[in-house]
């Protein structure tokens, strides 16, 4: 099975999500914004970004990256299913 550019973009997106889960560029910074350390705000925002990215992936790349033929109904629910 050949991978498309879109598949590789997802792999890249996951790598970026994982790498910057820790805001390395804020290392040593003790700036406090609105009562909490600035790196904690990054954490809050990043988790939301991750969640949105995951939701997008679940809609578009989920079965293709796994090499499952969604058409055959193997990877998708048999009845009911996604809105």
């Amino acid at each position, binding site marked *: *099975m050949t991978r498309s550019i879109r598949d590789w973009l997802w792999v890249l997106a*996951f790598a970026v*999500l*994982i790498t910057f*889960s*820790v*805001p*390395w560029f*804020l*290392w*040593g*910074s*003790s*700036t*406090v914004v*609105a*009562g*909490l*350390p600035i*790196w*904690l705000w990054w*954490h*809050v925002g*990043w*988790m*939301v970004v*991750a*969640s949105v990215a*995951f*939701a997008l*992936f*679940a*809609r578009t790349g*989920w*079965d293709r990256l*796994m*090499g*499952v*033929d969604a058409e*055959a109904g*193997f*990877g*998708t*629910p*048999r009845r*009911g*299913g*996604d809105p």
Partner: protein
Amino acid sequence: MTLQPLGIVVAYLLVALGVGLLAYRVGGSDAEDFYLASRTLGTLVLLFTTFATLLSAFTFFGGPNLAYAAGPEWILVMGVMDGVLFAVLWYVIGYRQWLIGRARDYVTLGEMLGDRFASPLLRALVAGVSLLWLFPYVMLQQMGAGEALRGLTAGAIPYWGGAALITVFMIVYVMVAALRGVAWTDTLQGLFMLSVLWVAVVWVVSAIGGVGAATEGMIAANPDFAALGGGLYSPQFIISSAVTIAFGVTMFPQINQRFFVAKSATVLKRSFALWPVLVLLLFVPAFMLGAWAVGLPIEVPEGANVLSVLLAEYTPTWFAALVVAGAMAAMMSSSDSMLLSGSSYFTRDLYRPLVSPDASDRREAWIARLGVAAFATLAFLASLTRPGTLIEVGDTAFSGFALLAPPVIIALYREATTRDGMLVGIAVPQALYLLHVLVPATTVPVGNTTVELLARSYGGWDVALAFMLLGAALTVGVSALSSPSFGEDADRFAVGGD
């Protein structure tokens, strides 16, 4: 007076037990229902049962304790990397296992691998290794409960009393309820704990004058706490902990078995996308409470849980008792998930294939229950020796499980993997890591310098990381050198299309 909270805790545990019993009556009685709730868990229940399984003493008490001692960066280590990295592994390992498990009705990881590689030995090895590392993790719950009750009752209940109480509840619970019961109570408790935790934060924060004041107090007491990094938190520590925990979690029997139970792919997808948010909602308040406590005029005795002390000081007794009760109940149900999965590993992958292939179902059920009782009791006895902090004990268990992950991932994706590759790739890193855990580090002079042997970390990196790489290399390398044995069938892991 000091015993009143105990009443609340016990009452709560009894209610949890009741819910489990109710669920058990709803479910069937065959093995697939007992262990997998007939593969019918929906999004909310799957999400929370996986989540609540992570709601152990490690996150509840160990995390805040560490934040109190070393700073709130543990939020990043545990929450973020675990949130994102685990979610990715949820897809890479979990979805794949779900596809394979659904097609071939597997119940345990060992069963799946043993079938694919036609090897009862591999099956037993995976089960044995899993049970080995499960032991310290069950111990951890007992240690956490012991401390929590002691803190709550100001010492009226000794450490061993709390540990014994949760052990008894664990055993009784697992005997009467099955996965459906555990999953139901997990869901209730997950929701309950999230809510009371946020109530606790509001309560404590308003008592000390707001979030800004709490953080100012924290910084005044320890200026290093607001800064990212420093002290314990080196990049090596953050990466080592995050990687070993995330990979380790996927191989925990109770988590790994969850990969088989989703009702549909949609359930897996939704859980996957909601995961980071759930992690965020839980870890930020729990660990910030621990970090803020540094700036507050409270005394945290040696070995005590900062969260119990903090609540006892700033919230009414009944509320503190309710939080501790909720935490203990969550720990109890995560222990039950562990014991339940552990017992399925024991009976299906060890007892039946190796000891008594034609044992009756009734006999198997009894062996499972006796095994659970013996396992929990031994863990209780070991927990009395207090072998380390909650984080240390938990981390050892996570790393041990993490070593299983690379060979399993390779087996899931590489058709060329062979039985010999799997056996070597699992056994060698486990043996080496055990050696590092059990034998104290020694310093050996080499020339005019010294080299440390058998240390748990080198230059700040957890030695388990090296063994994970070694395991991957051995699995691929030995597979390349050996040829598939009779009966191996890579098609059993095919997921269609590729």
